């Protein structure tokens, strides 16, 4: 069963009496352990697609299935639960809770999902070690470098063992070398867990780390996007 499926998904925003089409009959399939890079210019609808896949936005019409479940029928409360249990996010601007340590930023997710504290602590420690941050576990985000903060964000996204991880421009705030390292880390962690992921980027150099690259322009995806690799 594919991890993510979009069927004829449209998203239209209405601003100032004008309809703006952000997604236009989008069809997309991402397999269980597939890494898909979504490439497109600014305003092409990348972030909208990512937000719909993660239950942050609801489409104007069309169907979105994550792990076989149609999330377009979910209530706001169900979407919140869905985001907590089934999706991991890594945002463009490294959004860590500033008054929590690196370890606590991971444990927040476990508390939301009700994971037993011992299991959560073990999982957080394992992730921090894998991400090379075990020595930074007790540091606050302000005490971490940009690359370290992004690695904490990756750890947080994987903390709830999601079916789908969504990355929004994860390397845009990093230099090329650090960006490469982070992309390698993403690939290693995601593949190691056989988790599907969608990585939004406009940096073609980063697409080499994906299994498949899909282009999006003016809300339209490549014709073959609905065919998994």
């Amino acid at each position, binding site marked *: 069963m594919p991890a993510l499926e979009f069927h004829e998904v449209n998203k239209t925003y209405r601003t100032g009496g004008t309809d703006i089409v952000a997604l236009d009959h989008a069809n997309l399939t991402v397999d269980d352990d597939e890494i898909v890079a979504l490439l497109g210019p600014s305003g092409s609808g990348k*972030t*909208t697609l990512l937000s719909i896949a993660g239950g*942050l936005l609801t489409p104007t019409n069309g169907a979105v299935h994550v792990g076989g479940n149609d999330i377009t029928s979910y209530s706001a409360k169900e979407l919140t639960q*869905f*985001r907590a249990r089934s999706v991991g996010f890594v*945002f*463009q601007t490294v*959004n860590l809770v500033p008054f929590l340590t690196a370890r606590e930023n991971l444990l927040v997710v476990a508390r939301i999902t009700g994971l037993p504290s011992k299991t959560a602590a073990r999982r957080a420690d394992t992730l921090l070690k894998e991400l090379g941050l075990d020595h930074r576990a007790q540091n606050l985000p302000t005490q971490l470098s940009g690359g370290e903060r992004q690695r904490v964000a990756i750890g947080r996204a994987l903390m709830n063992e999601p079916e789908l991880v969504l990355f929004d421009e994860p390397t845009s705030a990093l230099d090329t070398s650090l960006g490469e390292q982070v992309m390698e880390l993403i690939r290693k962690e995601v593949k190691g867990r056989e988790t599907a992921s969608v990585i939004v980027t406009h940096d073609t150099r980063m697409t080499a780390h994906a299994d498949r690259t899909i282009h999006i322009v003016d809300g339209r995806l490549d014709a073959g996007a609905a065919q998994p690799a």
Partner: protein
Amino acid sequence: MRLAMRELIRRPARFVSAAGPLTLLVLLMLFLGWLLDGLFLGSTGAIRAHGADGFVFSADARESLLRSSVDEGDLNAIAAVDGVESVSGIGVSLLGAEVPGEDDVANVVVAGYQLAGGVLPEPPAPGTAWADRQFNALGAGIGDVVLVGPAATPIEIVGWVDDTNYLLLNTLWVDPETWREIQNANRPDAIVAPGEFQVAAVTTVDGIDEAAVRSAIDATLGTETLTEQEAVLAIPGVPEQNATIGAVIYATAVVVALVVGLFFALITLERTGIYALLKAIGVHNRSLAVGLVTQALLVALVAFIAGGAFGLFLGSVMPAEVPLELSVGRAVFVLIAVAVAAVAGSLASLRRIVRIDPASAIGAGV
């Protein structure tokens, strides 16, 4: 809630801007409350001292102790009413007095009464008095003689009673004959006859309908019988004093709610990004609201502790003339009022939290 606690612990400085003003407001509420309690107790002790179930005023007294008059016949008629257990005549005189230890002439109350009850023991021997303990604070002691009124009638202090003052004046409790002698010697304009008092304190038989007994007394004598609470509130100035200071206290509680509301409105605005992130990763609005209310309550608690400590210090250095009553009950009232105001103020930000779009964490949406 853990997030809220972590923020309070890790970033205490950002809450100082709320806790500081709240501490001062708590101090104001406590101080005013203690002052109100002190004024109330100091004004009404002479009524509450008897532990009576009713006070019989003459019909033309319009609930004034000083205008009221009951005679021996009235007392006997009251005692004969079904359900009445005991009747004690009471009379008060407001006079100047030379009190040992005081340079100036002090205003005092000389109160005559017939029977023990409440905090009052049996009336003392003629020419002697149970003095309210506030006399002790002025420097008077057992065996000292107070010279009362223009006639300088001597009264010897033979013991202390607590919380018995009237109209914030220190009170000397004497037997009825001594009171009449003092009243007639010093207030020739208001002579009292033998057997005459101003009001009668009535106790009723246990388990009886007290209101029915009071009605029966009034029906028999054409008097006006008040409950203790009514008699207390009939004392000139007491209701006005309660209403005025009470209004300031309640207004301060509203200011507390506004301060908390404004602070958390600003902090919520500042936290929009964090709230959007937390909502994006699956935190419910309810959890965010609980965290906000928890923070408001903890800030209020810290302010209460700081304000309370400051208030106790101020209370301890205030002169004895300031009628402060440092009661635990008032502190609990202020704590509850501040907590309710803090919760109400913080909940004002709830709508803003609910309206934060989790998609804004990722930069999507319009």
